[in-house]
């Protein structure tokens, strides 16, 4: 039962974080450096998330089929494929890599 407490506490904490950004005063957010910083942070965060999903397994670094997914996704994006095709290409590349015996 005590795991339930942590599930609910963690859900509350992440919700509070989501809402916190909206509570900042609009006038402060309208200052050009803040919007520019927000745009830069988005690039940094999305790049970080891409990297984590590609090479991290818990706290270990691993080179495996996910690298094929990154490559397949990049090729699909280069060819201006629709987003859903990019995602399917990523899944297919990892699935094929695994059937071929890669980790």
């Amino acid at each position, binding site marked *: 039962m*005590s*795991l339930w407490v*942590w*599930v*609910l*506490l963690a*859900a509350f*904490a*992440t*919700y509070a*974080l*989501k809402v*916190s*950004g*909206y509570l*900042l005063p*609009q006038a402060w*957010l*309208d200052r050009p450096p*803040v*919007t520019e*910083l*927000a*745009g*830069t*942070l*988005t*690039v*940094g*965060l*999305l*790049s*970080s*998330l*891409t*990297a*984590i*999903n590609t090479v*991290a397994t*818990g*706290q270990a*670094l691993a080179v495996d*089929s*996910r690298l*094929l*997914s*990154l490559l397949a*996704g*990049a090729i699909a994006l280069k060819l201006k494929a629709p*987003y*859903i095709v*990019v*995602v*399917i290409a*990523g*899944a297919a*590349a*990892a*699935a094929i890599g*695994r059937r071929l015996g890669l980790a």
Partner: protein
Amino acid sequence: MPANSTSRLTPAVRMGVSISIAVGVYGISFGALSVAAGLSVWQTVALSALMFTGGSQFAFIAVIGGGGTGAAALAAATLLGVRNGIYGMQLKALLRPPGKLIPLMGQLTIDESTATAVAQEDHDERVRGFWTAGAGVYVMWNAFTLLGALAGNAIGDPKLWGLDGAAVAAFLGLLWPRLTAKDPIAVAIIAAVATIAMVPLVPPGIPVLVAAAVTAAVWAWRHFGRKAAA
């Protein structure tokens, strides 16, 4: 949701629906892994419905599955959720939402809804993009979480279906449209290198925040450097 927001299949709506399907299906992986990590089906469903931020959810079950305490799982989920606060800040600046919508918008503020909103050119498209991706991912993510939690063992290892690879491509697809100039490309490379360097050194969830701090430092250096030069 404003009534006129989704009356047409605009580019933002189509992108939001694509992302909802692509990322939402990945909920099956979360559901299966969560049950495998030792959470009950209902705890798994509660995480998707109430927490609803994939990174934090995976961090939470990874800590539990690895034998960590509930407090450690809470800390990991919270740290990885900090970026949603930054997204909220950005969405408020761009969408200027009425105050009464903020409790609902907050819950739908995730990587995908933010990315879909900020990728659009005008205000109405941003609003449509946010709501389509936010509500769409919510419905898909929760439905597939339940499916994964119930059928986890029947599906076997979700990795065999390449679902972890789908996430890689999904995040690359969100990042890609921003890599239009030298500056964002440099920021993306620095953030990725910082992330990869931190992975072995700190618990899961922290590398993303280190990358955010490094990104902010790069921005400050460029911003104030420009000022000093002017």
